[in-house]
């Protein structure tokens, strides 16, 4: 168990996480498809065993689905950036927001256990930014994002960046309603990082290798790092960047712009 985590203790969480959804659970309900784990059904057996079909993180998944619908309705493209601590999420986003800002209305929420430092850094570009302080929690959940953006006018935002808490394990299980999940891995972390954290690599849509300007001094074989990403997740798009020097940033921005346009053109619902 992660001693940093203590996820249940959330004294700073004002809304108490009380998802009292009014789901109906009709007994003996038939499933039209064979993958019935997506549904909820409960049947009383004679021996006192209740069969329950429910995902453990279903409350989060339900809220993420609601957020996704709202983001689509308001035409907001949402990017969830996940990596270990110190791999350069804030640096990449700071540069990305500054570069996009002349013609794209950007906003960001950033999750950290403590301090507002990242929000201050991201805010230097002048875009709306909100810090989510998770206290002891090692990842963001959909309700934290929903709370953070509750008073924002989404109609005035084209792209929302969500900078997750630095962690390569926990965020992978939590859908935040994003369109794009970006996994960041720095050359300073070593070539085998994708192999060590296959679950996150599996859930990422795009991989960004950061700090390629440091590859040489830390003796990182960037080709090997890229091929390890492709080994876990064959065909994953890999972008090699240095947010400091500017390498790969154009390609990264092109990818974002292309995906944004594709989403805007897609029918809602």
């Amino acid at each position: 168990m992660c001693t940093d985590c203590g996820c249940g203790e959330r004294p700073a969480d004002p809304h108490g996480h009380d998802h009292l959804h009014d789901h109906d659970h009709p007994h003996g309900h038939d499933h039209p498809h064979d993958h019935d784990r997506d549904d909820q059904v409960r049947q009383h057996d004679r021996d006192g065993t209740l069969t329950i079909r429910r995902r453990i993180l279903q409350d989060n998944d339900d809220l993420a689905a609601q957020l996704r619908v709202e983001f689509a309705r308001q035409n907001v493209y949402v990017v969830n950036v996940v990596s270990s601590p110190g791999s350069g999420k804030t640096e990449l986003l700071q540069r990305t927001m500054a570069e996009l800002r002349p013609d794209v209305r950007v906003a960001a929420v950033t999750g950290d256990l403590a301090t507002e430092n990242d929000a201050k850094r991201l805010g230097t570009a002048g875009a709306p930014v909100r810090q989510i302080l998770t206290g002891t929690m090692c990842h963001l959940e959909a309700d934290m994002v929903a709370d953070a953006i509750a008073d924002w006018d989404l109609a005035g935002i084209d792209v929302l960046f969500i900078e997750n808490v630095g962690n390569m394990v926990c965020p992978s299980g939590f859908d935040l309603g994003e369109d794009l999940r970006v996994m960041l891995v720095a050359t300073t972390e070593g070539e085998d990082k994708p192999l060590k954290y296959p679950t996150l690599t599996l859930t990422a849509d795009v991989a960004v290798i950061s700090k390629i300007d440091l590859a040489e001094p830390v003796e990182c074989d960037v080709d090997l790092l890229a091929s390890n990403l492709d080994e876990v997740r064959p065909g994953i798009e890999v972008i090699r960047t240095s947010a400091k020097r500017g390498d790969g940033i154009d390609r990264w921005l092109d990818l974002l712009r292309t995906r944004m346009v594709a989403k805007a053109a897609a029918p809602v619902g």
Partner: protein
Amino acid sequence: MHELTVAIQIRRGLETELASDEGTLVADVVRVQVGALSGIVPEALQFAWPHAVADSATLGSARLDIDWVDVQLLCVACNDVYTLTEFRSLRCPHCRSPDVEIIAGDELDIASVDVRERARDLS
């Protein structure tokens, strides 16, 4: 790494499912399915469980049974299913084809619960 969150979500899920029977049932065994790709460590979840349900009248004394599910890949090229003891790659372990489908191993589900009626207080 977030097993206490997961344990609490199991409790909340069961409280939702059992809401109509609130206060009349006691659970003895809760069964969950945890896939190898879920990122959950069974021992840590087991450790967190009693803390998550300590003050629950229904679940407070329930044992947690964790059904661990290995990753199974269906390879379209081989037309065969492979069970992996350790997930390393989304490629067929036999022919290396990337044309595979995960058919098991990403579970994080509540499966069932053994309940009995709470003994009536006759005093």
